[in-house]
């Protein structure tokens, strides 16, 4: 997993609520091999949402509430990551999408709804600075806003490692649990 510390980038706005994972990655590409790359399938039927000359190579995507709702397909996160996005900002996310992001080096940032709404309403492209260590987003006028993330997920992202290696060290506890609970 690619580590994430901080970045400054134009934020590509998608001012829509409930952008579901079927839009992000249409189902007809779900069987495509991971290693071939998913960039070309991102928003395949709504390509105009991302192909905008005033937002060259955006690394941040900002959207209205409930971004990534719907299907659990992790392929939606692969498509965003392969396209070059490293941060997704929204007032809220689909639960499964949120955790899928964290597992792929993509930082989901739940940001105050009024701040998101103001950025989405801006007439000029907005450049944002996102810092994971301090858990803050800095908007063009210099104001900083905090966001939440679980400590462990944060450390995994900062170091670019996943959870599995850590959990495998806990196998003795898992085995003990199994012995203590034979009925399940």
């Amino acid at each position, binding site marked *: 997993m690619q580590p994430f510390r901080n970045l400054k980038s134009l934020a590509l706005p998608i*001012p*829509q*609520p*409930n952008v*579901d994972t*079927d*839009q992000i990655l*249409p*189902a*007809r590409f*779900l*069987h*495509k*091999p*991971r290693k071939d790359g998913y960039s070309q399938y991102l928003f395949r*039927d709504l390509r105009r949402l991302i192909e905008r000359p005033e937002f060259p190579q955006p690394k941040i995507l900002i959207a*209205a*509430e*409930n971004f990534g*709702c*719907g*299907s*659990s*397909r*992790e392929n939606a*996160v692969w498509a965003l990551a392969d396209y070059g996005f490293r941060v997704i900002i929204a007032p*809220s*996310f*689909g*639960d*499964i999408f949120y*955790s*899928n992001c964290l*597992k*792929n080096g993509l930082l989901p940032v739940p940001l105050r709804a009024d701040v998101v*709404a103001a950025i989405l309403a801006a007439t000029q492209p907005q450049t944002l600075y996102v810092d994971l260590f301090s858990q803050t987003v800095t908007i063009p006028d210099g104001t900083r806003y905090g966001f939440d993330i*679980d*400590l*462990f*997920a944060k450390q995994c992202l900062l170091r670019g490692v*996943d*959870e*599995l290696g850590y*959990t*495998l060290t*806990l*196998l003795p*506890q*898992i085995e003990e*649990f*199994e012995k203590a*609970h034979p*009925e*399940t």
Partner: protein
Amino acid sequence: MTPPLTLFEKIWRRHSILERPDGQTLLYIDRHLIHDGYQPAFEFLHDRGLRPRAPHRIFGTPDHYVPTTHRDVVQISDPERRHMVEDLARNTAAEGITMFGLDDQRQGIVHVIGPEQGITQPGITLVCGDSHTSTHGALGALAFGIGMTEVTHVLATQALWQRQPKTMRIAVDGTLSAGVSAKDVILAIIAKIGAAGATGHVIEYAGSAIRALSLEGRLTICNMSIEAGARAGMIAPDDTTFDYLHARPYAPSGEAWDRALERWRELPSDPEAAFNTEVSFDAAEIAPMVTWGTSPQDAAPIDARVPDPAQASSAVRRDAISRALAYMDLTPGTPLAEIAIDRVFLGSCTNSRIEDLRVAASIVDGRRVAPRVEAWVVPGSSLVKAQAEAEGLDRIFKTAGFEWREAGCSMCLGTNGEIAAPGERCASTSNRNFAGRQGPGARTHLMSPAMAAAAAVKGHLTDVRRLLEK
């Protein structure tokens, strides 16, 4: 003394292996259902030199990529899709995982066969790399969908890190009117609380109308919990649950059944247990529902009209409605019951069980599918199909002009290639009306099996209650 606990909290505590300093819990996973979308998970696992840790807790069946016109894997013409189905067969065989293959009568949509085989049981934790895993909560299990990285984690460890979600109790009290089903209840709930209304929560459905539902109806309700953003949906196990489970192949039997019953009877939420959020509905006020837009929250009673974006509560909502109506090619003010359809899809993990087919068949019986409408029945499992055939339902559907197909996900999602054409309008018993869900440019209206059957014979969305007065 333990404080009063909810059904969810009892299962959560019972499966908590340990807690991390940041508050995440390592949760033990009792059962893992897998399907033909698991190729990447096995690849990730093998890339790390790992193998499934507890194969006896895993059950597999192909559903997403299987054809519903025949049962021959070799005949799947697209090599990449065929590979998905073959890969599941290969991996399950290599790892000693129980598998209900395409040639097995027990094959079907993963969320239909879990309960059907008695694999899903009260009080267990169950996961699957599919968001509609919430379905299984209907039996009083804690069941939720996960992504492929989490799937790999569960395969390797039989455990999963989770932050404890909040709890929401949705009470539906009273009696449902004739022609109103579980599907209408859940659509009415989502229309009210919204597509993100339960984000971060586990829902427990309660109240007399929920108690009165059959197990099949409860599965339909819990299935769509995810469409309200919920992590999971659950219903307390009771005699309906136990009667359903008794003598199912993977349910406990003999003395083990008696011991299990004792444990299961302890599961329902304690009377004093507190929920973070409570919502209530009057069953008598729920009418047959249909969706008009591109989110499951865009649902309304069939006697309503297509909404006017100008009257939306906010600018964001106005834009969302306008975009949805443009995609759906609908004009504000049109009565929903006048919307003409091209297709009917009776299937999916929401509504493809025997009870769904019986209700639909009772509407279709003695009538004909309207001219130019293409109507399909896709049973949820091969056993459901066989049962329906034993009851003669297939003949009723075929006589009326429906296509009677093999079990699978089919046009709910179209990953097997069975999609609606651009611009086609489909009355569907599935769970998602997202833009392009049933094929690029295809337009989906969600509804109950009875309403879909009524739409099939009328050729347009219609109030099934009119057809009940034969």
